[in-house]
């Protein structure tokens, strides 16, 4: 996606807010409030959170898939689904993995075998309907180094950090990174492609979310960092998901859309499931800020 917003997104997350405010230009007169607006409710739909991850260097045999139902917009109480049957088949070598119902919405296995670039097929059967999806296990490079600074972000006094990793050359690669700092409840999510930087060292910048201005990052605070290698389709899906997550309070947001994942219900296409099935290699680092 060779677009202006891509370039900006890649280079400066911190100023996306400034850019939007500039486009808005009405800072003098505009006002945002949280309001009590009632919204319609649709019938609950199955949600399959099947994010299979293989931490680099481990066996990757323990995997969990979560099934739940969607709920009304303001109601965040979990709505787990039990009594479904979940299995994954490695289409490349024919292995099958059955996930066991833990009776609380989680379905687990201890026998999973992740193999780079193999294709996996997920099948969930719930209420006599089958939901399937297919993904390929994408590898990820190691995080080369992490550097902290103060001058990098929009606030020259705040601590921030940058992670560096080497892109695999001559391949089209997509990456997904999450950063969860200290006591934050929501992580920062970023997706990147190597379109402009194939084979080069790539970097991702992290700083405290502007909504969290009260909670300054101090030396000793920790950031839990994940880096995933992902497929192009998941990159597109996540891009839209992240953008819609950022939408709150932004009148110049693009028209929001229904985020359908990669699940299909072959017997009843209208009754698809939400969520996304991904199988990725990942690396995880916990970084502690110093003086």
């Amino acid at each position, binding site marked *: 996606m060779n677009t202006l917003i891509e370039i900006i997104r890649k280079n*400066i997350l911190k100023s996306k807010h400034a850019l939007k405010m500039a486009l808005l*230009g009405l800072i003098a007169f505009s006002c945002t409030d949280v309001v009590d607006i009632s919204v*319609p*409710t649709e019938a609950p739909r199955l949600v399959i959170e099947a994010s299979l991850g293989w931490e680099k260097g481990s066996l990757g045999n323990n995997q969990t898939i979560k099934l739940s139902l969607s709920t*009304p917009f*303001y109601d*965040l109480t979990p709505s787990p689904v039990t009594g479904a049957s979940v299995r994954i088949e490695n289409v490349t070598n024919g292995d099958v993995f059955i996930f066991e119902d833990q009776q609380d919405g989680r379905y687990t296995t201890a026998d999973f075998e992740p193999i780079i670039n193999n294709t996996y097929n997920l099948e969930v059967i719930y209420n006599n309907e089958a939901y399937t999806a297919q993904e390929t296990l994408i590898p990820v490079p190691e995080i080369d180094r992490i550097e902290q600074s103060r001058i990098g972000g929009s606030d020259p006094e705040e601590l921030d950090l940058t992670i560096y990793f080497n892109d695999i050359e001559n391949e089209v690669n997509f990456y997904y990174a999450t950063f969860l700092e200290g006591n934050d409840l929501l992580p920062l999510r970023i997706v990147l492609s190597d379109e402009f930087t194939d084979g080069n060292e790539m970097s991702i910048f992290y700083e405290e979310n502007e909504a969290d201005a009260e909670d300054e990052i101090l030396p000793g605070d920790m950031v839990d960092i994940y880096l995933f290698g992902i497929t192009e389709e998941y990159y597109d899906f996540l891009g839209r998901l992240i953008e819609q997550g950022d939408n709150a309070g932004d*009148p110049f947001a693009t028209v929001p859309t229904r*985020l359908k994942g990669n699940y299909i219900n072959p017997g009843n296409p209208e009754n698809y499931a939400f969520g996304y099935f991904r199988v990725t290699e990942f690396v995880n680092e916990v970084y502690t800020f110093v003086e």
Partner: protein
Amino acid sequence: MQYLSQLFKKSFLPLFLILINSMLFAQEEYTLRGTISDETNGETMFGTTVYFKGTTIGTTTNEYGFYSITAPEGKYILVVSYVGYKEIQKEVFLNKNTTLNIEIKEDPSLLDEVVITATDGSERLNIRKPQMGVVTLKAETIKLVPAVLGEVDLIKTIQLLPGVSNNGEGSAGFNVRGGAVDQNLVLLDEAIIYNTSHFFGLFSVFNNDAIKDVKLYKGDIPAKFGGRTASVLDVRQKDGNNKRLELNGGIGLISSRLALEAPLFKKKGSFLLAGRSTYAQLFMGLADDLGNSKISFYDLNLKANYEINENNKIYVSSYFGRDVFNISSLLDSNYGNITGNLRWNHIFNDKLFSNLSLIYSKYDYQIVLDFVKLDWISDIENFNLKYDFGYYASDKIKIDFGLSGISYNLNPGEITPSTPTSPINPLKLDQKRAFEAGAYASVEHAITDKLTARYGLRYSTFNRLGGQAIKNYANNQPVVYNQGLGIYQSGEAVGETEYSRGQTIEQFGNLEPRLGLSYKLTDHSSIKGSYTRTAQYLQLLSNTASVTPLDVWTTSGTYVKPQLSNQYALGYYKKFNDNAYSFEAETYYKTTDNRIDYIDGADLIGNNTIETEILNGEARAYGLELMLRKNKGRFTGWFSYTLAKTEQRSFGGIAGGPGINNGNWYNAPFDRTHDISITGMYKFTDKWTFSANAVYQTGRPVTYPTGQFEYDGSSVVIYNNRNASRLPAYHRIDVSATYKPNRKPDKQWKGEWVFSIYNMYNRRNAASITFGQNYNTVANEATRTSIFGIIPSITYNFKF
């Protein structure tokens, strides 16, 4: 036998003799022509009625004040009348072709009449023009309507009329009869204006001090206009006072303006120079993280004319306006329109008037992002040559015909590194070139005393020219439906076709009939009907809720077809109590083909191949517009109500799949079911005038959530069908009071104070509502952005 011969002698013979007599001495017809202008400043008067008293022989003046009436030789009383002016009656002895220029004077006792003329300029004339769906506004009326921060604004004023609304505060442009913002042809002295707003719709680019009058054609668009399907907003600048030096200006809370007019060339010409500007350093440091910020805009209007002789007059007009933002050291942005027009009025003979114009217009947008070292610029410019003729054939027939050619150059976006060490690579989205031509002829025919018809035809062509490469796609599908994911995605590009500068990529031609009929029921009421077909070859791409300067103009071509629209309208008009009150009702039905729409998640900004983000669709709109006006007395004003529906739909077409919203009709983004405006002006005393307006509109369509699910540690919002919900209703009341001290009535300097309050009860009208998780509480919430709360202001206006 004898009886018969008696009959012959007494009746047929005299009749026969008279017949011979009249054949030998046939009645000659002569033409009276001239220009009608305003006595105080020499401004030509558009739409003034000129006729011979007691007959149906007459006409209304054209944009340049020209009239021409042809009648049999004889003595007549010529009546010249225009709303708000003293009627002139002058004896004329028509025995040869004569030129008669007349000046008319404003009637002080009528000065407070609301000068909005709906369809015809005069109520006293028996000739009824079949033009319907048109509103004329004079600058004086626009001044009376309270406005944000005391800045009178013609775009805000037209929104108080039925059928005209806008897409929410903070958004640019206006919508007419459910048409999109880019479907309005906005002309300033014949030059196309691409963005009518400063500061995202807060103000318009039209400095009221430089404006003479405005005509808004809502549906029945005359054949001489082409290229847009919803409306034509024809704004004309003043020519300039050709009798004496005149100064107009004002000092307001956020901006000031000054307009200077004076005669030239020993009063054979005149000029107007007007400027308006905000104060620099505005709104500094209002948001902590944005630090040192500046937002400003300015306008410059220029016009000059010279009357070479009775048959030739030349004009030059120009406009230059700019919006400038600086957001601390992060961002510099500016955008604006620039136009220029050179015109030559030439009167070939007493019946044939012509105008030749050479016009230039450009709109550009530039943004420099220092932190990325990036410089982005996009622009659209055009050259236009048009030649229009008006032939006043007889007292029953008037013919308009002409030609127009517009050459377009679009630069959708160019990125250059702003410093030599910038990591940004230059990128240029393909430049697009096109040529649009039109030829038209239209006849206005007074068929009988009661029935007038207008039949016109416009033929337009559009050539998308080469000088770029066009991508080709597998199976000719730039967009494909991905069955698995249930979404539309870009098709697979399989190479390009190179077109050299001399080649034509695509060519289109369309016939656009324009028909109207008007029937006079009584002296005070009439009904009208019209059919209009229009073609539009340019579209503004936007998939955000508001129009932003990053939205880019694009033209018809290989993947985007011209929009074609048909509009049928019917209207009923009635005046009461010697025009103290008037009532108008109009109903319309409009269909538009080839209206493009964006797939879910479309990425338009900076995209070189928008064909991968769109689907072809259609739109339809219908509605009822009612307006009741009180035109005379201490209290004047109007009440307007529009009941309307606008919807669109897109099928999958060659892309496959169900289309947008499953191929069902859904609300267009600017659909407003109810739109009520009440405007009133009350002349309390000679010194004090009060005015107020109240507006109520159904909230605009939006996409609301219908649920949420948990994914990857956060809540993901599930959205409903596109535009299936509505924002809360929009309403507000504005008031203003004007105080004219006038302590020294014989002094030339006149001043007035205008106190106004916008949005008197501080309603927080939602410009948009977005949904998401609260970062700190992780609860889901709705966040409303509203733009203008209560805004009081004071302006001092002066006139010299």
